[in-house]
């Protein structure tokens, strides 16, 4: 049994009488200790999808399918049990490192809060654990006394990671944990996260639009476009030999130093992702796809398994069947 399973999950927002499908039929799973990267442009549904793990999606959203954490469907659990599993079984590192901490509470108190809540430890025991957690992410134990505004962006994000580890969860969802940070700090924070995940054997769902970051951090990568997974497979394969043209474009957007293929072609992808409430007929990527065929405009290609990879592109399907 996988640690986390998304089973045909669809999420629909309702805004002003219009149904906006943000996520459409996603099936993914993460095994214990495994790292899954989810890539895609803003608005492709990756954050919406992972918000369901702790049932944090907006009240107005309709969710179908199942989100199973340790085999239990989070979406139908009673609220009391949802609160009990929040942070204790799975925790999150949010994307807004700058604002994810309470500005008027000391860092130590915020770190201790889930410990006292879930593990029912005493204040003094919690303080010991807080120092331990801070040292784990490379911050001095005295940081517990400071307020969030006294920390830099990278330090705040480390505090968030320490907080996510507080109750020793089996799964951490990191939603663009390094987006707001500069490259050097980003590398440090990634190092911390990666090291701890490996050391503690925690399952990790890592959301990013940066495929190169995901390829070095994750075991597997899923690429999402317009609310669907369009490509999934082992991280190195997806990054080095992307099959779906959208994954190709995403990988090409992060040129590798020393690779002659990128020297004269710093490639970008023209156009914008479609508005989820108004998807084009056929493959939602066809208006931006350089190799779109007539068939691509007629029906949305299914996500088919070929070997250890899945892909939702007709061209890949035909070549995959031939070979």
């Amino acid at each position, binding site marked *: 049994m996988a640690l986390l399973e998304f089973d045909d999950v669809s999420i629909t927002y309702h805004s002003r009488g219009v149904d906006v499908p943000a996520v459409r039929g996603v099936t993914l799973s993460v095994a214990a200790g495994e790292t899954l990267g989810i890539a895609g442009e803003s608005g492709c549904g990756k954050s919406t999808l992972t918000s369901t793990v*702790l049932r*944090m999606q907006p009240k107005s959203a309709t969710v179908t399918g199942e989100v199973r954490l340790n085999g239990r469907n989070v979406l139908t659990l009673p609220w009391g049990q949802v*609160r*009990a*599993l*929040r*942070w*204790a079984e799975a*925790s*999150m590192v*949010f994307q*807004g490192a700058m*604002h*994810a*901490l*309470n*500005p*008027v*509470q000391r860092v130590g108190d915020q770190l201790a*809060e*889930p410990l006292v*809540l*879930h593990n029912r430890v005493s204040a003094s025991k919690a303080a010991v654990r807080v120092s331990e957690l801070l*040292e*784990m*992410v*490379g*911050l*001095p134990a*005295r*940081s517990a*006394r*400071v*307020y969030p*505004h*006294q*920390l*830099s962006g990278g*330090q705040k994000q*480390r505090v*968030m990671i320490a*907080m996510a580890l507080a109750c020793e969860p089996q799964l951490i969802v990191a939603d663009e944990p390094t987006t707001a940070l500069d490259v*050097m700090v980003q590398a*440090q924070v990634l*190092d*911390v996260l*990666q*090291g*701890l995940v490996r*050391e503690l054997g925690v399952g990790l769902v890592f959301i990013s639009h940066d495929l190169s970051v995901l390829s070095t951090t994750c075991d597997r990568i899923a690429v999402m476009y317009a609310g669907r997974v369009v490509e999934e497979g082992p991280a190195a394969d997806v990054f080095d030999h992307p099959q779906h043209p959208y994954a190709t474009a995403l990988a090409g957007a992060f040129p590798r130093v020393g690779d002659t293929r990128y020297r004269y072609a710093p490639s970008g992808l023209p156009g914008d992702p479609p508005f989820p409430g108004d998807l084009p007929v056929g493959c939602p990527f066809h208006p931006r796809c350089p190799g779109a065929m007539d068939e691509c405009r007629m029906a949305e290609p299914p996500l088919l398994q070929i070997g250890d990879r899945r892909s939702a592109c007709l061209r890949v399907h035909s070549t995959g069947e031939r070979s």
Partner: protein
Amino acid sequence: MPSVGTPPAHRGSRSTVRSHPTATYVVRRVIAAISTLIFVVLFNFFLFRVMPGDPIALYTKGRNVDADQIRLLRAALDKPLGEQLLQYLTNPFSAGVDSVKYNAPVWEVIGPHVWPTLLLVGTATLIATTIGVWLGIRSGWNRGGHFDKISTNVTLVLYSMPEFWFGMIILIVFAVGMGPVPGLFPTGGLTTPGVDTSTPAGWLDVAWHLALPVTTLAVIYLAEYSLIMRASIIEEAGQDYLQTARAKGLMDAMVRRRHAVPNALLPTMTLVFLNLGFVVGGAITIEYVFSISGLGSLTVDALSGPDVPLLQALFLLFSAAVIVANLVADLLYGYFDPRVRT
């Protein structure tokens, strides 16, 4: 232990070497308050020099004086501006200049009027803050709910009402009596003549007299506080750190109490203290409606003269009240919001 770069020392350790950030903050606020007070004192002086009105005419009104006496009086007042300023600065708090109307030192005239105003304003502020903040939190947290709709509409109506008008309605209905409602409360004053206010029965008598004016004042300010509190709760409700608090598994009430309210209280707290300064002088209408001989009534009295020395002292007192309230608000803000003091 994963390999990471050495984290830079946080700011707290550096600033202790120089000076304590909190102490610096307090000192800076106090200096600002003192300089404002000095400015007000000077401004007050020049304001009354350019004000229309003839103090001699007022002083001699209805008295039998001849031209010579008027000339003498004028000579006594027409000293050079510098000399006047010096005199003004040296004895604003002594019995230097008497009130024209009461023929007594101004601070002796003001003294007995301070307590009724403080009692009225203090009680009303306490009630308004408690209820207003509670209402604001409750309606803002469940924005658009039944409670919010009713509370917001009622408070908007109350907020828009002129306080003297509301006071008069209250007075007519509950003190005079109207239709089936008997006049339960006294129409004015703070005590029943002859009641000893140092006994418990006397306190009850004062409370009975205060009920209507305090209610009027409290209701008006309560409306304002609840609207402000509601707005700041709504603003905080969308913040990321509340998302974090929820993801931790806290119950909704705990998310509100531990995380949302401490942040949302800050603007309301500032407003309450700012108002407190203004209310000391601003209860004029309420005191007038309910015939309470507080500072407000005294101001109206002094203005009708105009009794310049008395007015000058009152203006100084009101300005000082605003400045002190402001200082308290600043210091409290610094205490509750760590971002301000460092």
